[in-house]
């Protein structure tokens, strides 16, 4: 049962992931090429991370799957504790206390928390008594997700916290009532609209729309209870959105959102990253400037070019063609993984696999959108490609988990 059956092993997905890692290494090399010191730092370190992650994954794969099922809760709690400890003993980098510092290397527990939370939620919901339609079960599921989110927000690392929302997608797929999604989507729409057109205008529009609907319903003699709830909900959403945007968000967050929504155009200040990154894509054209020849890349204008903004380097040096290859690799990988997971009958397996897919998918979506300027600047890496040991390890564990589970699906367990 614990052995990997060669016949069921998803070799293609593994090849796709290895290609992505390889692409990542090439581009990290290119970014650090102009500076001898950073080659040593970024490229060779990443090479070490790759070897290290593969070794860890090999060990994890070889362990019996029952081990994970059994100790899921304990591992989850240990990691939660580590998230608390990092707030006390952690090293502050870029304004967030997210790092443990070991001899020479740093580790980000919030990254490891991703597969662990996947494990925990998979175990909790695969319990025969856990019916997702049950309000209490829903509540506890949310707690499992919200606990790490809150701790990560304290660091503060809103980017990583945002990724944990991918579990919501998993919950939805395995049967969470649509009401939650509807509420979530409506709030998002109301939030964005409020920022774009302002609170007063929004309240006027809501007032008008609901008044008309209200009058129509009186005329048609339809029950109005739901409408009243809905209008209350909308008004409160708008007010809370404004409150959050104006009081809870810091200026830099507001600025980033404003830049993406096109409210502000400050190409040298707040919008600098996005603008420089867009210029890199533009400079790439269709076939790109060529390996090691990217002018924006060589100019080193884009901050975090080796990590969060590495896709800009790909876009410049390999052009639209190169970007297309990378995106296709991701899409094929994600589709293949989700298609194989859909056939999975075991709920524990299914939830974990979906979590892995959702996390990778969220990372991919948010990172690429940010780099090409259609999403606010959020510091999260591009899976398998961006420089960074903790994140690579985290993605590799998620992927290894998928590989192991996938090879099990024909078994009766």
């Amino acid at each position, binding site marked *: 049962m614990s052995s990997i059956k060669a016949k069921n092993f998803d070799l293609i997905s593994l090849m796709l992931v290895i290609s992505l890692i390889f692409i990542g290494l090439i581009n990290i090399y290119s970014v650090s090429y102009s500076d001898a010191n950073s080659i040593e730092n970024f490229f060779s370190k990443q090479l070490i991370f790759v070897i290290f992650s593969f070794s860890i994954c090999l060990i994890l794969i070889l362990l019996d799957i029952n081990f994970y099922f059994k100790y899921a809760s304990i591992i989850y709690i240990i990691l939660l504790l580590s998230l608390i400890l990092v707030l006390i003993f952690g090293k502050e980098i870029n304004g967030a206390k997210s790092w443990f510092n070991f001899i020479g290397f740093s580790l980000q527990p919030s990254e490891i928390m991703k597969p662990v939370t996947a494990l925990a939620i998979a175990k909790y919901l695969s319990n025969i008594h856990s019916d997702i339609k049950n309000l209490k079960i829903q509540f506890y599921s949310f707690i499992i997700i919200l606990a790490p989110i809150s701790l990560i927000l304290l660091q503060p690392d809103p980017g990583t916290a945002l990724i944990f929302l991918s579990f919501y997608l998993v919950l939805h*797929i395995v049967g969470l009532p649509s009401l939650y999604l509807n509420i979530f989507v409506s709030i998002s729409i109301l939030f964005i609209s409020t920022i774009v057109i302002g609170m007063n205008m929004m309240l006027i529009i809501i007032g008008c729309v609901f008044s008309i609907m209200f009058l129509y319903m009186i005329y048609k003699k339809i029950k109005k209870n739901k409408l009243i709830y809905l209008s209350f909900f909308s008004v409160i959403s708008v007010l809370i959105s404004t409150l959050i945007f104006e009081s809870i968000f810091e200026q830099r967050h507001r600025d980033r959102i404003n830049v993406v929504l096109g409210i502000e155009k400050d190409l040298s200040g707040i919008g600098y990253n996005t603008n420089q990154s867009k210029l890199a894509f*533009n*400079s790439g*054209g269709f076939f790109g400037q060529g390996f090691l020849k990217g*002018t924006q890349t060589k*100019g080193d*204008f884009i901050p975090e070019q080796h990590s969060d903004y590495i896709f800009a380097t790909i876009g410049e040096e390999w052009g639209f063609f190169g970007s297309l290859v990378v995106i296709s690799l991701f899409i094929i990988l994600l589709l293949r993984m989700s298609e194989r997971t859909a056939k999975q009958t075991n709920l524990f397996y299914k939830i974990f696999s979906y979590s892995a897919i959702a996390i990778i998918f969220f990372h991919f979506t948010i990172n690429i959108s940010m780099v090409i300027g259609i999403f606010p600047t959020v510091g999260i890496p591009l899976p398998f490609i961006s420089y960074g040991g903790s994140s690579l390890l985290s993605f590799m564990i998620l992927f290894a988990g998928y590989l192991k589970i996938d090879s099990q699906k024909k078994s009766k367990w």
Partner: protein
Amino acid sequence: MRDKLLQLLIISVGLLVIVKLFSLQVLNNSFSLINNNASVQKIYEFPERGYIYDRNKKLVVSNDFSYDLLVVPKDVNQADSIIISKDFNIDLKIFRKRFLEAKRFSNVKASILLSNISKHEYAPIQEKLWKHSGFFIQKKSKRTYNASTAANLLGYISEVNKFEIEKNSYYEIGEMIGRQGLEKTYENKLRGIKGVKFFQKDKFNRIIGSFKNGSFDTLPNASKDLTITIDLDLQQYGDSLMLNKRGSIVAIEPKSGEILALVNSPSYDLNSLVDKNRSLNYKKLESDSVGKPLFERGLQGQYSPGSTFKIINALIGLQENIINNKTLHKCEGGHFYAKNAFMRCHTKEATFSDLNNAIYTSCNTYFAKTYKGIIENYESSSVGLDKWNDYVKSFGFGNYLGYDHPNGKPGFIPTSKYYNRWYNNSWRAVTTISNSIGQGEILTTPVQLANFAATIANRGWYITPHFVKEIENDSINDDFKRKNTTLVEPQHFEPIIKGMVDVIDIGTATNSKINDIKIAGKTGTAENFVRIGGIRKQLTDHSIFIGFAPADDPKIAICVFIENGYWGSRWAAPISSLMIEKYIKKEINRKWLEKYILDGDLSSEYLKPYLTTNFTINE
């Protein structure tokens, strides 16, 4: 069902991202991105500014080069200072001091170590430049004026200001622009178009190569040399004649409208406006409210034309059939035009003047009666005056002439509307009788008067006066080739010209006669006033002369205007005749007259308004 949701999401995100990337990378290859691009540096290549030649191809304005030696301290091997200072011929102490200053300013940015190195000094430095890293040479160009003349005419160049940068996107901070005179009018031709090269920079501002393989680079477009209509010799001779006098000389070649000389006095040396003392010197010129050297009198000075204006009234009188050359008017030593209003005249009392006589004696009465006749020839004074106005304006008066110089004033020729407002609709010809002798409301500029002289010389037409003769590989404005015809028919000019010849032969300007050149001319003496502490005070009259020569085949038409020079024949006429002699014969035979003019000094006249005591005029 919900299993498919994830796949649907993955596909839609993939498509969305691909579409956005396609638009960003393939469709939107726009130039505008360069401008916001911190990583692209533009380096301009400026074509050398065009030269200016006079009509005889004498070089008037050219460029001079000097070189600066710049240093980037971080790249310099300081152990070599002794060799460096020797190679570059700098005193070791000075070198060390300046190097330290440069280093203090910036270790990585270039500072000037030696400035204004001449071509001569440059060669040995350039030979040794390769030996030392961290040094480079920057070429600088500045305008040089080979003749210290025609300052306001030529104009100068200086750095563009914020307003000009906003107005014209071509210019950037630190670039030069023609700011006055012909440098301004022909800025685009003289300037050429700068070329631009785009370079890729890294975040330390170092250039790491050309941007997009130079696909956006442009080559500079060469500037064009300008040949102007000015005769440099004549212009400079005019300068010498105008020494210690204020006023202007405008000389025009009648058949082409080419301005041969535009002398303004007092003037200044343009070479004082090129180097680092530029702004200080300019302030000095600007604040000289007495001499007003920046005021181009020939183009901007609006004065009463005085008796020179009688000619136009005679011409209109002939055209309108009010007078013919036989018409006699009795002169009573002046002209009563209203009760207790008497226009004095310097001709003898109770003589009869015909047109010829009236011109060369400049009889006020004759022209007053002629003018009155013109105005009263119509059903009302208004119609008559406007008809008269049309005639006068057809000679180029009362409006900008349209020459190629940014300075100018329209002058003023009154219309019936003007008098209606002023006199509340109750006025007659005699109310405006001053118009007959060029006093009163009429204002003309010297260039308009010179153009008037050219028009008479041409017997009824003129070409808009201009300063451009030729633009290298380009053509000049067609307006400067077209004839403008006056409303007075050609045959009416002959009797007038005969009278004007007699002005020199037997009339008011006999002192200005040249034996073998027949000059036609007319003197003028214009009353003028100044306000001192709110009190209107009359100053010595302006001395005016317009004329052309030779009368039968005119080569030069001229207007000389000497502020407060008194009689037209005292200064303006002799100066005109010297200018004519200089232009036609290239040398002056009448040395006595030349000496009289060169020694002439009106400085005391110009001090009068500033005296606290009373002064007498017209001595």
